[in-house]
């Protein structure tokens, strides 16, 4: 799938000028609220028309102001999962699910009803009305409804934003299955690093109506300078790790990567499965000698690859740990006390409790 977007649109006093291309399975439009993410998605869906520009999916032009092409929304075949679900209140869940399917050309009805219902775990809801569903259930039905219209591209505008943490955790695995088990490419709007780090294959970072960076998820998530200030606490390096061992006695899981082994607690995953692990920069301590007598279980060795300021008195230190990147956020005082400099060998210390279901993804089955 190739999605190419190059559009300009004026919205009141706000100028949107977004250009990016993505070939990823799941492209995240990432940025703070008001950066224009939803507008970009609305332009792709056809809810908004650009003043200038072109949008194409797999070479199929959806809108091109120069060629005066603008396919109307209902013929774009682009699924849209709205932030607020927008289920039809007068229809049952089953009828809501069937709505888009009815309009899809028969030859293109790729998604099987039973499979989608099973994928999203909504079979017990089919005969209910939307008003009787919880927020998380509504959102799952909305995803199913969009999916069953057999779209060529699925847009998701912060589908988790209106939900509390428990509901988010409930839906996240379904989104991962969606990415890995269906063939529909997804464009996902988010301002949460936790979501982005778990889901994205490609990230386009937006700020003030512009795409400021676009690239593979791994490269972008580690760039703390691109992260919106209120999300920096959650930012950090993202590594793919394999479950190497399960220690039943202590309930520990050993996750392995080139950077070394990491021990995490309370993760019940099969040995050999691959997981995406986010190591928050604020959870990483640095030591100039291998520490002893420490409760923290994870000590990784590496060399300092880069040092960059991250705010007034904070420093972001980037380590090269045997080819993998680990990022640590420390104070300027620590930097000067330890006399850290690029090229110096250091030890990164991470507590095992820094890893949980929010930072370690479900098993990955995705080719990147």
């Amino acid at each position, binding site marked *: 799938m190739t999605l190419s977007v190059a559009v300009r649109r004026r919205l009141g006093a706000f100028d949107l000028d977004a250009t990016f291309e993505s070939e990823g399975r799941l492209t995240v439009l990432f940025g703070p609220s008001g950066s224009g993410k939803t507008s970009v998605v609305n332009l792709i*869906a*056809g*809810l908004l028309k650009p003043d200038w520009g072109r949008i194409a999916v797999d070479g199929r032009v959806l809108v091109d102001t120069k060629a005066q092409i603008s396919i*109307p*929304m*209902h*013929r*774009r*075949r*682009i*699924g*849209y999962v*709205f932030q*607020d679900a*927008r289920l*039809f*209140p*007068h229809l049952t869940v089953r009828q809501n699910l069937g*709505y*888009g399917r*009815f*309009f*899809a050309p028969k030859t293109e009805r790729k998604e099987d009803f039973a499979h989608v219902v099973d994928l999203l775990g909504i079979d017990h809801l089919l005969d209910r*009305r*939307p*008003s009787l569903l919880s927020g998380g259930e509504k959102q799952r039905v909305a995803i199913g*409804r*969009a999916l069953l*219209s057999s779209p060529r591209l699925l847009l998701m505008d912060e589908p988790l934003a209106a939900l509390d943490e428990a509901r988010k955790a409930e839906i996240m695995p379904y989104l991962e299955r969606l990415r890995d088990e269906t063939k529909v490419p997804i464009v996902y709007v988010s301002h949460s690093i936790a979501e982005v780090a778990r889901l994205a294959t490609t990230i386009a970072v937006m700020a003030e109506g512009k795409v400021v960076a676009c690239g593979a998820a791994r490269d972008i998530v580690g760039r703390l300078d691109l992260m919106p200030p209120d999300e920096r606490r959650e930012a950090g390096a993202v590594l793919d790790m394999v479950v190497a061992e399960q220690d039943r006695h202590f309930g520990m899981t050993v996750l392995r990567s080139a950077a070394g082994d990491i021990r995490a607690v309370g993760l019940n995953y099969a040995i050999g499965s691959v997981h995406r692990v986010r190591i928050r920069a604020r959870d990483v301590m640095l030591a100039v000698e291998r520490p002893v007598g420490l409760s923290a279980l994870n000590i990784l060795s590496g060399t300092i690859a880069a040092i960059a300021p991250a705010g007034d008195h904070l420093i972001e230190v980037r380590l090269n740990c045997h080819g993998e990147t680990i990022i640590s956020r420390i104070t300027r005082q620590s930097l000067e006390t330890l006399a850290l400099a690029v090229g110096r060998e250091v030890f990164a210390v991470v507590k095992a409790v820094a890893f949980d279901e929010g930072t370690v993804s479900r098993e990955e089955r995705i080719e990147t």
Partner: protein
Amino acid sequence: MNWLGNWLGLGPDEWSAVRLSLQVSSVEMIVSLPFGIIAAMVLARGKFRGKSFLDGVIHLPLVLPPVVTGYLLLITFGRRAPVGAFLADHFGIVFAFRWTGAALACGIMGFPLMVRAIRLSVEAVDRRLESAAGTLGANPAWAFATVTLPLILPGVIAGMILSFARAMGEFGATITFVSNIPGETQTLPSAIYTFTQVPGGDAGALRLTLVSVIVSMAALVISEALARHVGRRLQTR
């Protein structure tokens, strides 16, 4: 249906007035419905010059004396009036002194009530549901038929009942436009009026009044029941 008339103790003329009123009101209600929905959609959603003028014209029958409305109809749709002559010559539709004219008068008198009720429910519809339907492949006509229309149904029902009830009671415009011809244009209110003008007509007037009350009550009860049924399906969004 005559047994009903007999059972109520109505004479043939009285029964024909009741039947005519029901016929006029039903036809008026059904024929004006599509126009009412279109007008409500235009007034609720449209953005154009002269919208408040259109709004005013539609609401005029509500504030004008009914006799004035009836007279305006007479000089527009009368046999020799411009529109009336055109319709009679080209389509064979005659309004003057026919029950169809009574239906036209009642339709126009009830139109603002119907439009107001439907418009309120159109304004309450979350338009984002229509764009959701659009992204799922429904063109605007389908989106209207499958999303908007079911959602405004309570308002449509209320508008229909209001228009029907208004037609059952319409007197001034009807008698001015199509007169008071027994069996052709003598509706329930006209018949009651006639009874009150002749000596000894009290009993007949009372019988018809009773029918009028029953029909109005029935309309209210039916509309309540329908609204509750539809409302239960919609509940919250």
